[in-house]
């Protein structure tokens, strides 16, 4: 068995060698030149698979940097953060950290934040489903009982805060986007919500009170606590209108009874 482990380690190490790695491990029969050419097919497949999987998760980064630069990023990323899962949809989770650290990518300062958003969009696509909430269940409760409920976010919901106008960068780089491509980078930091009304992942910017409410909800707070958080940002926060819209957009999908575990 040690032989088999050793063989697979050597095969794998030779595959992982990036540019310039032209040799094949000494494991195969046949003419050395032919073996080298044939082993290179596996190496090429590995590069192509990684680049394709990464581009599927990060289409906006792909558009922002162009095909050639992206394939360079993919090669470098794969070397530093190799795939650890047989599910390629899990490949690429450290791309934002990689971009923040990789000097050539840092020339576009917002790239890492866009990657953070895209990974959340990607993972939201595969998040668990949740049935739509029927607000009729709440009508029988008193106002006090209602305030003690814990709103529950859809499993696909993610909150992101960034110094850059992420929602706008994302929107103008969606396929089929028409209109003004300008992005105003002078705006203040903003909160972005990733959510999935049914099967299509959406991205929206949140004002400070909505972000505070949903963050408190995400942390397991009660309706009363979330409301207080929202009102600390905007005293005129519209609770009923916001809840109605969030339930309708499957952002909030349930209200756990008072005392229930968050």
């Amino acid at each position, binding site marked *: 068995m040690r032989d088999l482990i050793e063989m697979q*380690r050597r095969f794998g190490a030779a595959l992982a060698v990036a540019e310039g790695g032209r040799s094949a491990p000494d494991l195969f029969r046949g003419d050395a030149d032919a073996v080298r050419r044939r082993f290179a097919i596996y190496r090429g497949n590995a590069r192509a698979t990684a680049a394709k999987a990464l581009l599927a998760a990060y289409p906006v980064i792909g558009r922002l940097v162009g095909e050639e630069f992206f394939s360079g990023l993919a090669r470098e990323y794969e070397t530093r953060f190799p795939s650890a*899962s047989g599910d390629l949809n899990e490949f690429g989770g450290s791309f934002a950290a990689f971009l923040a650290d990789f000097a050539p990518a840092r020339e576009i300062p917002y790239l890492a934040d866009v990657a953070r958003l895209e990974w959340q969009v990607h993972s939201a696509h595969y*998040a668990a489903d949740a049935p739509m909430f029927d607000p009729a269940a709440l009508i029988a409760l008193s106002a006090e009982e209602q305030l003690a409920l814990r709103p529950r976010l859809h499993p696909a919901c993610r909150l992101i805060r960034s110094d850059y106008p992420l929602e706008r960068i994302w929107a103008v780089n969606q396929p089929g986007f028409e209109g003004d491509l300008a992005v105003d980078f002078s705006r203040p930091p903003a909160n972005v919500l990733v959510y999935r009304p049914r099967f299509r992942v959406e991205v929206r910017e949140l004002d400070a009170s909505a972000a505070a409410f949903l963050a408190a909800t995400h942390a397991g707070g009660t309706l009363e606590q979330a409301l207080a958080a929202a009102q600390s940002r905007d005293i005129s926060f519209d609770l009923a209108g916001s809840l109605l819209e969030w339930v309708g957009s499957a952002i909030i999908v349930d209200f756990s009874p008072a005392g229930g575990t968050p």
Partner: protein
Amino acid sequence: MVRAGAFSPMSGSPAHDSNGIASATGVGLRACHYRDFLDGHPRTGWLEVHSENYFGDGGYDLHVLDCVRERYSVSLHGVALSLGSADGIRAAHLAKLKRLASRIEPVLVSEHLCWGAIGPRHFNDLLPMPFTRVALNAMVSHVAEVQEALGRRILVENVSSYVQFRNADMTEFGFLVELAYRSGCGILLDVNNLYVNSVNHGFDADEVLVEVPAALVGEIHLAGHSKGDDVLIDDHGSAVPPAVWKLYERACQRFGPVPTLVEWDTDIPSIEVLLGEADKAAQVMAVAHA
């Protein structure tokens, strides 16, 4: 220790495994054809998907698969379980496959005669096995473990390869047949891969067909390949080539009716073209058994 042979091939013929799709042809379901299957009811005997594409907790892909499953038999074809890894089956991967199989109730479950992961790394490719006794023993135990976890027999597919190990002491199909007898798994015969390897490694594909006991063959795959410098590349990117059709015809004569699937993974054509290939396979199968 998992007992090998718990799912003996004697306990059921391939026809028993494949519940009603015994002589049917099907196509691989890919995302670009989702709409065809959601909006209409394309005529095909059954569908096969890559298991790993449906490993998520929820979302659109699983929704489509649930919808399609209501109207078609579905086969789960894994590409990354890595049955041949020297350091064993990845438990998390097997758990996800088991969850998916419980949800979909597939007509067939299959994997590959290959490895793809070692240590913490996954190469996400179908890498070739050294056909040695040591590798065979490991694979028998891994296949038995998977069958035990899933509570059913699986099929294992021959892969195309570009290199051959110096220390091999068996042929690919010698290895695969013995794996099937010892673990109780069936064989998914990929006729394109067999043809590609016969050219790449210089052997007679027809002689291989004779080596394989008919009772072990539970499914056949057909696909296209392309020509590299001095090798054929198994890219599933074109119509099934004439040489592969000829080999398929002889496989049909030898193995009797076997569920047959057409795969097309790059430069994927319209659903009509894909179904046309499956119809052609049905004709070849019918003529072979007439």
